[in-house]
């Protein structure tokens, strides 16, 4: 497509954060009235790119230039980009649940005269917008009463009310069922006919194949290529996957010779529903097992249901309508609280350390002992000296870089916080340790240390389950990998037989196994 037909050009975009280069000389060119897909693994830099485009990261905080409709842009806030007609619809919807559809559509942009809201105009205009997006709800319906799919449509209606020229959708169908997804894709197509350009960020390759005119692949913060989906040769999912993962495994993983023992944990036919949207199945009849001395990986893209599986097993801390069986050392066990899980020797280290893993207001010492206080106390009285001794021991053996265990965990770096979380669960001495994204947001050196700790735990005869979005990591440290897609286990592969391409296939498979 010719340059003069481009609605958006981003050239030489480089964005660095302290210690990391998130984007390196990225180029993106989007033509007028096309559907342009952006593909890449988790952490490839897609979201960063979108945040630069929308002004979340203001002009000046990155290098490179943005041309929108041929004019250079220097967005400093989201408002700036919206004024030009660039609207982003985020994965987490940003609607106010207790307000009506119409109020949400015109939030911050009220139909008002001298500060007094004109409700007739608000509702009438909202109704028109709803018709455009194919939503038949009354404009005064509270957003609370809508499902996720319909909320997404309200977001798009809101975007249309702002005279959108470029619509960016970040994983719009991740939380939608098939029907809602296809409705959304149809809508993008009809908007395209009205001349509205869309950028679609998605993990679902079948959708991209179906709707995108072109696809730009980003990997490790660099543009790999832009594929014309419907030129002479049709671009296949195969082709996109190769571009997404095409990198070699580095020797970034410590060696380990597995000594695998008896089965420690087996989960059978595990089904979990969403805690609020109770009709939605989040984990769908998943079965898996892990043996002592084994490191098992759970691969999957965002929203595949891995964290939900882990948390629902860990004392039902997620979900509703949970069914299935848990067998610990061959015996069926009933686990309905975190206390039960810990008593049965199951530990879960969360993916979100700050939100769910640590008390950031408290010291390393008191965080380390938090889940096994019983081991350092008698008659409800904590033996502070023994506690210090144990915390010191973990500080040294796991290499938590700080002068004293009295340091507040809130002051530690991500890698060191992760080590505190690990210390906490190692101290609880579980048989099965579920680690959710154990290396997220930490630097390469610290990652290696975390891998070493994982290996050591497996060598001590613990069963380790690692949930990770980084395929190289799973391939580097796991003995066996389960692939998840849309809440189902879509495959189980031994390390020797696994590679990134085959895993990515399994991870992007839809219900009917259509990715192949």
């Amino acid at each position, binding site marked *: 497509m010719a340059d003069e037909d481009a609605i958006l050009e981003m050239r030489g975009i480089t964005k660095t954060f302290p210690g990391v280069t998130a984007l390196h000389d990225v180029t993106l060119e989007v033509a007028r009235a096309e559907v342009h897909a952006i593909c890449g693994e988790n952490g490839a830099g897609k979201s960063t790119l979108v945040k630069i485009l929308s002004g979340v990261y203001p002009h000046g905080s990155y290098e490179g230039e943005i041309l929108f409709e041929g004019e250079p842009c220097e967005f400093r806030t989201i408002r700036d980009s919206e004024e030009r007609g660039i609207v982003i619809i985020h994965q987490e919807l940003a609607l106010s649940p207790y307000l009506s559809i119409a109020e949400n559509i015109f939030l911050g942009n009220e139909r008002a005269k001298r500060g007094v809201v004109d409700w007739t105009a608000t509702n009438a205009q909202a109704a028109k917008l709803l018709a455009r997006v194919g939503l038949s709800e009354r404009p005064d319906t509270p957003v609370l009463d809508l499902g996720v799919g319909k909320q997404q449509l309200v977001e798009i209606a809101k975007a249309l009310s702002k005279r959108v020229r470029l619509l960016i959708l970040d994983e719009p169908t991740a939380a939608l069922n098939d029907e809602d997804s296809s409705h959304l894709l149809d809508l993008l197509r009809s908007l395209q006919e009205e001349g509205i350009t869309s950028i679609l960020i998605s993990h679902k390759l079948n959708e991209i194949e179906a709707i995108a005119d072109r696809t730009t692949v980003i990997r490790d913060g660099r543009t790999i290529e832009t594929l014309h989906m419907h030129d002479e040769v049709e671009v296949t999912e195969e082709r996109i996957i190769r571009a997404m993962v095409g990198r070699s495994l580095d020797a970034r993983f410590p060696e380990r010779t597995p000594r695998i023992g008896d089965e420690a944990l087996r989960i059978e036919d595990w089904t979990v529903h969403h805690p609020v949207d109770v009709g939605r199945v989040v984990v769908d009849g998943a079965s898996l097992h892990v043996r002592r001395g084994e490191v098992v990986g759970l691969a999957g893209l965002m929203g595949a249901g891995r964290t939900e599986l882990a948390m629902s097993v860990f004392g039902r801390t997620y979900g509703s309508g949970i069914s299935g069986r848990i067998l610990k050392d061959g015996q069926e066990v009933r686990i309905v609280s975190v206390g039960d899980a810990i008593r049965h020797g199951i530990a879960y280290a969360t993916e979100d350390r700050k939100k769910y893993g640590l008390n950031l207001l408290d010291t390393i010492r008191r965080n380390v002992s938090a889940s096994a206080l019983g081991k350092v*106390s008698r008659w409800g009285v904590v033996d502070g000296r023994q506690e210090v*001794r144990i915390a010191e021991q973990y500080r040294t053996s796991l290499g938590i870089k700080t002068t004293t265990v009295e340091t507040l965990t809130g002051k530690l770096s991500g890698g060191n916080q992760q080590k505190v979380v690990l210390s906490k669960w190692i101290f609880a001495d579980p048989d099965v340790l579920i680690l959710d994204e154990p290396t997220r947001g930490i630097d390469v050196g610290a990652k290696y240390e975390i891998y070493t700790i994982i290996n050591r735990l497996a060598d001590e005869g613990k069963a380790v389950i690692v949930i990770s979005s980084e395929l190289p990591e799973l391939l580097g440290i796991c003995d066996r990998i389960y692939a998840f897609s849309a809440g189902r286990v879509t495959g189980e592969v031994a390390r020797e037989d696994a590679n990134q391409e085959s895993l990515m296939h399994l991870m992007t498979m839809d219900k009917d196994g259509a990715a192949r």
Partner: protein
Amino acid sequence: MSTMTTPTPPESPPQRTASTLSLRARMQGMGGNVRQYGILGALVVIVLLFQVLTDGKLLLPNNVASLVQQNAYVMILAIGMVMVIVAGHIDLSVGSVVAFVGAIVGLSMKELGLPWLLAVLLGLAVGAAVGAWQGYWVAYVGIPAFIVTLAGMLIFRGLAIVLVGVTVSGFPQPFVDISNGSLPNALGYVANGDVVTLLLGAATIAVIVTSQLRSRAALRREGLVLEPRLSFTIKLVLITVGIGAFAWILSQSARGTPIVLVIVGVLILVYTFVMGHTVFGRHIYAIGGNRQAAILSGVDTRRTNFWIFLNMGLLTGMAAVVTTSRAGASVAAAGQNYELDAIAACFIGGAAVTGGIGEISGAIIGALVMGVLNMGLSIMSVDTEGQQAIKGFVLLLAVAFDLVNKRRAGAG
């Protein structure tokens, strides 16, 4: 055991293990303690200020004794309240519950003819039952404490008014002595000082210093980082001088050590231990610091919350006994605004509105700041309205100071 002015917990917790590396690392390591030294400094400044403004009347022995007697209820309530606040809740009902329990204690002596000791125990039991009632709604039904205790504030004030239509008074002397009496002068005087008081002071100093030394020795055996010798010594000297001076002044007062001081001192000791050294205390900080993380660590948040409120009720029962004894009467209007005094004491003492941070010693210091203000302003004949306004300003300034400090620490 007059530990009231003691800035440090009687038994040295290992959190005194500061590094010798740099001041910054040490400040980090000591966490909340630095902040409490700040509050303690503020208390000292306020005391000195009023000492000057009142021409030395503030620290006259009899004034110090009545300072303790007048503010015992705030300190007792603040102990329970700081636990509630650390867990991320609030209790607005304590003033009304003081009136309600006070009514029951008074009536049980006058109408039912219960012996005073039984009446006190009954008061504590009723207080605990009220706490359990509110704890049930907060912990097991999940209604925010603000709402539950707002309801409690209305309910128990109402019940108190129903119970004591006419003021109930004329209690047995031992009951009245709880808040107005002193330990007997069993051992005579030395240099005009009550020997019992002086011995109590000396014993308190001895206990604290020994436990500090022992704890330091234990840390050395473990090969752990020690607080620098100089600052450790200075700390011990300050403790000794502070408690010593307090005991000396008190021994010069007309009647020596007030009985409530012993009660409050024991409560401070017990609850400092509970918050710092027990699993229950840990769980309170864990829930307030990060509720989700606490749940995912296996803390039974509901049971903990229930016990926090039950305990608040128990301490409110104690405060009711002290208040009724002090007034020598049960009145329906007793305990007016006590909840606000207790909450203010906690926040002046460095507790965080969002939970997770706060200490018993801080709350006690906060209560003393308010008490000294009251006493000082009264001596200067400032009327109650003026006192109230000034206390309001002090609360605002204390929290603002704290916030600014925190922000600076966060930026550094």
